[in-house]
């Protein structure tokens, strides 16, 4: 099973994508989409050193995404406000460092997606010495608040989603 279907989730996503693209639920599309869903991950397997993500707790993931979505919309309006109303020089743009406990690459990826999708913050990189995340904040009021928010609102749930059974899992 593992051999032929390395990631059922990925395969399912591909099938779903196929059906959505063709906007059809005909059997032919199920068949073809299914075949592609199996084939594509298999063929791309050699180029996937980190394997595929295992979502341990889907519910936590949904909660996280919902929360992030709200945060994104909120930040959007913040940033809009700043762009429209403030003078550029008055904006306190800063780099900050956030020490991370999250190790799972997939978790880090999700974190990066959330942070980058949230206007006002841009992920730069994880500094190799000390596993700190270097972050750029558009309008920084309080560095400690930011570190705290990221660690509790984002990192913790992500660790839950990806790393609960054995920390560092998901790596091949």
């Amino acid at each position: 099973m593992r051999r032929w279907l390395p990631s059922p989730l990925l395969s399912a996503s591909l099938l779903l994508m196929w059906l959505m693209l063709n906007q059809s639920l005909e059997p032919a599309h199920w068949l073809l989409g299914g075949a592609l869903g199996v084939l594509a991950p298999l063929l791309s397997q050699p180029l996937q050193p980190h394997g595929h993500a295992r979502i341990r707790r889907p519910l936590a993931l949904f909660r996280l995404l919902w929360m992030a979505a709200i945060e994104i919309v909120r930040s959007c309006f913040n940033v809009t406000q700043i762009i429209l109303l403030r003078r550029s020089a008055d904006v306190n743009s800063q780099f900050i460092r956030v020490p991370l406990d999250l190790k799972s690459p997939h978790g880090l990826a999700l974190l990066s997606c959330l942070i980058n999708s949230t206007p006002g913050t841009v992920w730069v990189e994880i500094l190799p010495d000390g596993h700190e995340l270097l972050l750029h904040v558009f309008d920084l009021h309080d560095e400690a608040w930011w570190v705290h928010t990221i660690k509790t609102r984002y990192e913790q749930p992500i660790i839950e989603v990806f790393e609960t059974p054995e920390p560092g899992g998901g790596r091949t």
Partner: protein
Amino acid sequence: MSGAESLPWWAAIPVALLLVLGGIVTLVGTLGLARLQSFYQRIHGPAISIALGAGCILLASMLYFTVMQSRLVIHELLISVFVLMTAPVVSMLIMRAAVYRDLRAAREMDPGNDAGNS
């Protein structure tokens, strides 16, 4: 606007609102790109265009076509997913490129000063 006459008001108003909002947000994002002073500020501008601007338009599109064609048209979701997957990569790489380019430039200007990661 072929066939738009058949659209009921309950759908037309949210679609129109989403369109207007999406347009405005997109514009504001690029306005940030154009008027902010440093690169590190400017990079935050397009983020709202991508996140909210494109999002609103996608939503409007889904709603519009779903009502228009009286069936669930949600393949625009694919676009959202792909944008969500690729936009972080782009901003990460551009940002990192900018940081290290600036670092290197600073080092070349003043070789004695071992500037850390700002």
